[in-house]
């Protein structure tokens, strides 16, 4: 089977998954308590008005008609309107995507850069201080809730050691949310400033904006990335140890091949194969982590919007965001699978 066919097949599979997600979301909304029209209009609405909205929105139709309408709308790319702000959900989702992607990519980059070397060192120097250190770090990493980690980083670095961090000075003890993130950012930009930063370099050779972005992103990215760093470190370590025990490694040693080649060209490469899959599956955890991290740091991404939508039970907005997240997950996993076939020749695109 060719790569094209493989992608077609995986995409088809993805479409089914998304359909499942859509159905699940619809089902949840259908069984969740509270009348949508009332939620939409707020408590003060008159009975007449509520009844009119119910009629308009098709809420009086039988459930399967509602489902059919819902799926048809989605197929036409219509995610509906937010119940509260009455803006198009699509726009509300799209404007928040870049910031989340910036955060997620930054976290992933940090995780991979730190975790793989750490895992290799840990596995090749088993039962030495470096290994103990890495093991302890990874144990702490997977056991620390990231919202707390974020707060502690701010507390320790910002408050106690006085390392300047954006907007720390602005927030007060009495602010509703402990605003650390973007109160000082000008509004009206896409994302959290990475693109502008790059553009500023191109435009007038100034690195200031990018550095500003970097200062903003560092703590959130560390907060989000720690769990992954820890996870990948553990996976790399145990994967390498498993792999080193395999027969082909002995055979490779018997050839007289230098140790560097055995460790990196042979063992690490094969270790990465399962790790890639795990990472694909863990993208969901990354998204979940992003929700929390964005809330802690007031990062203007999808996660923050999701929490807002949830707290006021704005179902269309919530569905739109979750659907997008599921779509991301499916796409990433198709990419991961394609990558997998490249890494592991045994898995042909069949």
């Amino acid at each position, binding site marked *: 089977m060719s790569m094209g066919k493989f992608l077609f*097949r995986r995409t*088809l*599979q993805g479409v*089914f998954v998304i359909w499942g997600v859509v159905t699940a979301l619809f089902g949840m909304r259908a069984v969740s308590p509270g009348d949508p029209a009332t939620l939409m209009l707020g408590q003060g609405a008159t009975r007449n008005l509520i009844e009119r909205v119910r009629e308009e929105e098709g809420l009086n139709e039988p459930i399967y008609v509602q489902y059919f309408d819902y799926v048809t709308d989605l197929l036409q790319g219509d995610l509906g309107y937010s119940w509260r702000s009455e803006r198009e959900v699509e726009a509300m989702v799209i404007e928040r995507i870049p910031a989340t992607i910036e955060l997620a990519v930054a976290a992933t980059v940090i995780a991979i850069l730190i975790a793989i070397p750490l895992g290799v060192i840990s596995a090749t120097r088993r039962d030495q201080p470096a290994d103990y250190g890495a093991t302890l770090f990874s144990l702490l990493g997977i056991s620390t809730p990231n919202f707390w980690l974020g707060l502690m980083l701010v507390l320790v670095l910002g408050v106690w050691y006085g390392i300047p961090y954006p907007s720390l000075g602005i927030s007060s003890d009495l602010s509703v949310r402990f605003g650390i993130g973007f109160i000082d950012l000008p509004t009206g930009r896409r994302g959290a400033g990475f693109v502008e930063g790059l553009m500023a370099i191109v435009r007038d050779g100034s690195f200031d904006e990018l550095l500003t972005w970097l200062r903003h992103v560092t703590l959130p990215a560390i907060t989000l990335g720690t769990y992954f760093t820890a996870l990948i470190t553990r996976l790399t370590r145990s994967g390498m140890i498993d792999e080193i025990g395999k027969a082909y490694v002995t055979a490779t040693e018997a050839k007289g091949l230098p140790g560097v080649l055995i460790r990196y060209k042979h063992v690490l490469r094969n270790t990465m194969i399962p790790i890639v899959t795990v990472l694909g599956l863990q993208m969901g955890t990354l998204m979940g982590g992003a929700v929390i991290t964005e809330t802690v740091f007031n990062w203007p991404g999808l996660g923050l919007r999701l929490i807002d939508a949830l707290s006021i039970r704005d179902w269309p907005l919530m569905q739109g965001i979750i659907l997008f997240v599921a779509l991301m997950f499916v796409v990433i996993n198709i990419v991961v699978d394609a990558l997998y076939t490249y890494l592991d020749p045994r898995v042909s695109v*069949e």
Partner: protein
Amino acid sequence: MTETADGVEDREPIPEGMPTGSDRTADAGDDPLVSVRELTKYFYEHDSLYDRLLDRGPVSIQAVDGISFDIYEGETLGLVGESGCGKSTAGETLLNLQEATDGSVAFDGESIDGIDGSVPSSTADPPVGVKLSSVLLAVLGVVAVAGGGSVVTAAAEYPTWIVVLGGAWLLHGLASVGTAYGLWTVEAWGWRLATGVAVLAVALSLPTLSVAGGPAGVGVVAGLGLFVYLLVRRRVFITPSEFRRRTAIVFQDPFSSLDPRMTIGDVVRQPLDVHDVGTKEERRERVRYLIERVGLSADQLDRYPSEFSGGQRQRIAIARALALDPDFVVLDEPTSALDVSVQAQVLNLLDELQDEFGLTYLLISHDLSVIRHICDRVAVMYLGEIVELGDAEDLFESPRHPYTEVLLDNVPRAAMGERERDIETLNVDVPSPRDPPSGCRFRTRCPEVIPPEDVGLEQDQYRAVTDLRQRIEDREVSLRTARQQAEDRIVAQELADRLLEVDLPPNHRSYVDEALEVLAEGEYQDAADHLRERYESVCERYHPHLGDEDHPAACHLHGPLPEEAEEARPVVE
């Protein structure tokens, strides 16, 4: 079983007129204990929901492809072949541990197919017949309930009974539909229940015939119909339980054939528990007897399998197989995982037990020495088919199929002079059972392929040309590599250098070169066709069948050639 060995005294005296014990089959009129006809087992790949949506037919792996043989009481039939030839699958399918794709097995003259409780496998759609019959069964269930319902109105004495049983009947019908579509499997109770219901429906409807007339008549007819139908569909006159009781199997891997969480006492007692044989005390006695009979100490009954060595575990597995005093035992590579010295112990034990318990064996093995040592008759399997079947003596002394010859020839003998013995080795690998060769399946490796008449090539030259064509057909020739390697030479020339390893007579060489030129253009199909035109063998066109003579071999060199090829039959040197 000539009297060469010392250990004869503890064996049954050898009956008269049986010098080798191998011609028990000669007792004409003896019905076989096990009779296998056209047994077929395919496994399917690419059979998920998505594959169906993408409309790709499932790929079948033809593990066992239409094998037939008989096993007579008291004999040992050997099933020998290389790994992947389907011999183990054949053994498991025969015992209905895997569902057969096709074919039938009769045990003691009674058909056993359709026994519930085989390990389900995700096969393709069930055969249309099964689907239809299950739908029919469900409909019958509905009719019977309707009939039963009218009986209820007529004779109010039995309302609860009939409604409950009718409902159960209906459920069973639905269950069967589910089974047919692979949704779930029905246990054997389903069959029993349905039969019971059918009988009851008739019994209950009959007395009310005079009262209810028509409706009760429907009940009676439907009930009887269902009962007959069940018998016909199952063709089971031997109950599943009896079949399981009278057969047993010993597996290859002594480390996986015993549940690590059961003590060996539990392991050996399990068959007795399943069939609820005897009292607790009797079972315990039986287990002690068996364990000691296979050469272990009864003190060890409380130990776990991990505390025993491979050979000891295999003895435990044998004790378990014998627990119900079966008639027929499938031995699936029983000694392959054992060291030679332990293998010999186990072989001796099996031999003793056969006489003592009056067992019939099907011995599956890749080890020809073992086969020869204990088998009376032998079937040789290759790629899912039986290629030769005969008395052990005959088959080993004068093999008829070229594959059997090669197999026998290639076994290294543990004797002086082995270094000097000339061996003919096969240089081609076994083809994939996903896409077995046309005609004779062995032809891609056969040293005695029948060339077309007047081709005028030596066997090795002919072989080289056929191999070349095979590789072109399989698209196994990389033109890219050839083009790179050719540099400034002609690609066809380069291909010839790479692919042809023997010199051909000039006229053949130029013919082959023509084909290679076509190939160099990237036209695989045309190049293969060109070669096939001149070099196609009868072995490729016609599938040889196993005859029904005493010692049949599925090979065109022996059996009658297909008629069309009759005049083209060449003389093989």
